[in-house]
């Protein structure tokens, strides 16, 4: 990175904030904000510990299963909504409602229904991710040129073949965008689920750290989470850019 008249790379603003954080931290203004260097040191210290690794395992599993459900259900539902006006009319109000609903408020209800445990966390995660996946998939399917669908049909494609060979590919740019945003929401979902259920994974660690005012631990965990979400989003963003070339050439 260069300064004074030179072009700065994208992430350089983060560096400025990091420096600012370090200064404020060193000034010892508040117990809530330890210096960044201390947090990073703490991160290196706690990441290899057993309690961290097992919490990471539990969280990663809940995340993967939850987003797995969101993708496996969200994409077919989105395709159906894009294809059928009737299904669209039936489901769209609900999807829109859940997309903007404060899902956190639902978690206690889920706890009653599914118990205080991993199941509830997984369902919370899926609920955070699924609606945007449905909506984006639907938007992707709606712009598929009708002749592409007729083509598949005229060459004898079954509904199954049309789904796997035409719909998800033709709508792929939108689907990937939905999955990327859905996954970011799911990171939020899995932590909120664990926090409210408060017996498992990172949620339990967060609870533990903040209750005991272990702010270095707290921030270290948050940073780990931030990096995980960032890597995930970048990875999916990379895939999205790879299919960009045909997003432009699909127009009917």
């Amino acid at each position: 990175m260069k300064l004074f008249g030179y072009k700065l790379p994208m992430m350089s603003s983060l560096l400025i904030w990091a420096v600012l954080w370090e200064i404020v931290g060193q000034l010892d203004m508040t117990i809530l904000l330890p210096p960044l260097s201390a947090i990073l040191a703490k991160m290196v210290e706690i990441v290899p510990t057993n309690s961290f690794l097992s919490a990471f395992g539990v969280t990663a599993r809940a995340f993967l299963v939850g987003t797995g459900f969101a993708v496996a259900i969200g994409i077919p539902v989105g395709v159906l909504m894009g294809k059928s006006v009737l299904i669209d009319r039936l489901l769209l109000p609900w999807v829109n409602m859940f997309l903007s609903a404060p899902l956190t408020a639902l978690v206690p209800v889920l706890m009653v229904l599914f118990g205080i445990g991993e199941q509830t966390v997984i369902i919370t995660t899926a609920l955070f991710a699924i609606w945007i996946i449905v909506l984006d998939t639907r938007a992707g399917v709606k712009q598929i040129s009708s002749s592409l669908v007729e083509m598949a049909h005229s060459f004898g494609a079954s509904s199954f073949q049309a789904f796997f060979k035409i719909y998800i590919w033709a709508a792929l740019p939108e689907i990937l965008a939905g999955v990327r945003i859905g996954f970011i929401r799911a990171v939020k979902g899995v932590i909120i689920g664990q926090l409210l259920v408060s017996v498992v994974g990172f949620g339990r660690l967060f609870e533990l750290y903040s209750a005991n005012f272990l702010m270095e631990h707290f921030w270290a965990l948050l940073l780990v989470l931030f990096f995980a979400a960032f890597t995930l989003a970048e990875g999916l963003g990379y895939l999205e850019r790879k299919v960009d070339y045909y997003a432009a050439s699909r127009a009917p």
Partner: protein
Amino acid sequence: MTSQGNTALKTTQDAPQSDIAVSVRNVSKIYGGAIHALNDMTLDFPRGQLTSLLGPSGCGKTTLLKIIGGLLDQTSGEILVNGKPVDGPGPDRAFVFQDFALMPWATVIRNVAFGLELRGIAKSEREAVAEKYIAAVGLSGFEKQYPHELSGGMRQRVGLARALSVNADVLLLDEPFSAVDEQTRRKFQEDLLALVEHEKKTFIFVTHSIEEAVYVSDQIALLLARPSRVSEIIKPDIDRSISPDALRRDPVYLDTVERIWSSLRSYVE
């Protein structure tokens, strides 16, 4: 390339090899209970020949083609392909689309082999067939390219190769050349004539262009709108052994174009 003039020959269930490949019987199509796109249309398509559907915009050419292709249901009437009533798309018919309808995420060879892929034919086998038709439409060397890397004319050649590779008896072409430039279009028309001769298939060809219809067709069905019907069947009696350029100056060719034009004009006015 002589038109045999046997359209009166009856097609029956037990004579699938009759000289009529596709028979349209009293077909009507009403969209949404109000728009009469086709009205009691009856028309025969002789086997191994190219029949053009020619007519003004909105007279139901695409509608008829899609009904024959099984992509649309008729409101009443019957379509027979090789003597059997049509109920949905089938391997005996293949479509060529006006906007090409290629999969932008798939290579040329995968696009061409797509019909066979859907039938579950092994990859090596279907690619061998695709290869053959890619060569037949003059696209050898472009197998691994993607559609967006090709010109409009080349894309339609891919669409044509895809339709040929499933080895259907009947090819349905909806204004296949309308999205390509004039030079490409002429070359296409010449290639199409060669295909009709070599492939021994029945071609049903929708076009807006009178010249194109006269140039490529064994038989032209003039359609008129409101109520949509076949007004006239014209069999251009053109000597195709002469060169394409000479043909376009041929008096019979010019007369036929003129005759169709005056026919259409009398309805337009």
